């Protein structure tokens, strides 16, 4: 059933997000082309392109964030909730579906932003230079640590990125779920819950850092930062992924408990 939920969720989100990203990319390509090809802008081309990039990324990020929040409110806690919560699907699957799709939305945004940077460098210095630089970098990495390790590290980086996005999304959803327990001022409740959870999260991070300084964890983290060894880096990344997935599980559980036990659609 999760697969079916994901199918409809991606369709619902894609019909809004794909055109937004499409318009963004096309306008960015045209803008860059005009700026760099025209002599009139001279040295201001780079600066103007960067400002345009920053403005567009901010706009697209806001649209993505609004969509992530709106999908949860409208589809689960609004009138559509009467349809969704009467499907033969568990509450946990509904939340998992939303977290997965929301994380994918942010990741997709990151991919689009990366492509934008590629377009910027490519338009400025030439795409052949860009592809050669990427190829050289990868080739050097394969030469030094081997293809398998490069692939493992790339995979771990992707999983870590998705995990970090899942933390953001699951925290937002847990806050909305807690806010839903209020009969009035639910949005205010959600904002309060988000701030509260952020404080707790920050305290936990501080404690973790202190713990890391006096134990073996520190060695592994050092591995991720100074590349003491490939195996150590991979282990460190794996540990980071696990650590990132812990808050996701906690936020999922909060949302699950609230929506399963205290659901009250208006």
């Amino acid at each position: 059933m999760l697969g079916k939920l994901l199918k409809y969720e991606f369709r619902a989100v894609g019909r809004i997000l794909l055109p937004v990203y499409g318009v963004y990319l096309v306008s960015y390509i045209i803008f860059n082309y005009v700026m760099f090809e025209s002599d009139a802008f001279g040295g201001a081309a780079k600066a103007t392109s960067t400002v345009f990039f920053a403005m567009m990324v901010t706009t697209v990020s806001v649209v993505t964030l609004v969509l992530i929040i709106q999908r949860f409110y409208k589809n689960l806690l609004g009138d559509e909730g009467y349809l969704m919560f009467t499907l033969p699907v568990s509450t946990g699957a509904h939340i998992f579906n939303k977290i997965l799709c929301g994380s994918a939305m942010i990741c997709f945004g990151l991919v689009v932003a990366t492509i934008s940077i590629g377009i910027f460098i490519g338009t400025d210095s030439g795409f052949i230079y860009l592809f050669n630089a990427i190829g050289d970098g990868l080739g050097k990495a394969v030469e030094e640590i081997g293809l398998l390790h490069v692939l493992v590290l790339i995979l771990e980086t992707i999983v870590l990125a998705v995990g970090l996005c899942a933390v953001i999304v699951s925290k937002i959803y847990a806050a909305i779920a807690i806010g839903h327990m209020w009969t009035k001022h639910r949005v205010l409740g959600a904002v309060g819950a988000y701030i509260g959870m952020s404080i707790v999260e920050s305290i936990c991070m501080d404690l973790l850092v202190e713990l890391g300084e006096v134990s073996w964890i520190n060695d592994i983290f050092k591995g991720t930062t100074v590349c003491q060894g490939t195996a150590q880096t991979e282990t460190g990344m794996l540990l980071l992924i696990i650590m990132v997935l812990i808050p996701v599980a906690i936020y999922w559980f909060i949302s699950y408990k609230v929506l399963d036990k205290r659901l009250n659609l208006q």
Partner: protein
Amino acid sequence: MSIFECRNLTKCYNNLVAINNIDLSIESGQIVGLLGPNGSGKTTLIKLANGLLKPTEGEILIDGHKPGIMTKSKVAYLPDRDFLPDYMSVQQLVRFYGDFYSDMDFNKAGEMLKSLNIPHGMRLKKMSKGTKEKIQLILTMSRNAQIYFLDEPIAGVDPAAREYILKTIISNYCPDSAVIISTHLIADVEAVLDDVIFLMNGEVVMHSQAEAIREKESKSIDGLFREVFRC
């Protein structure tokens, strides 16, 4: 075994008692009217049956099971509001129901939609309120469910649409299932009811066969309703 049962069922919203210690049992093969004025607890009872609310006390059983994934596959529910995603077309909605409910009858849905003459690719947001309600009803009644909960299916539509809705309900529900219709428009539905439940302030004040009421009280159910719930 009853298809729908409530045992000492109570639901409170903070200090407000919406359902007060109800005991109820409904058998399959009948159309039941859940009747009562606004705020009597009809919608709350239906939401509890669909797992959208949790009881404060007591229990509610569908075919012997508490509301959950299993009961949701047996229950067809029509809420008292526009609950379908309005960006979806009729065709997409039929597929959506088919994806999630194994008892979806595509032929039945096709037949009913044909009578409405609505293009299958038309999005819900482009439809009138009456047409939207008909689509919602068609999707609900296209399932071969064991129990149907229809919350105010005829409220807010014109008399012609009411006639269409009632005709659709009668001609499409499975004979061995139960249909529970919540409404306060008694005169329009009373002809199709086998059984009647009167709710007032969250309590069952009467549960009887429709025919028995007419014989015993020598008046229509609508007449009795007006007498019982006179302000």
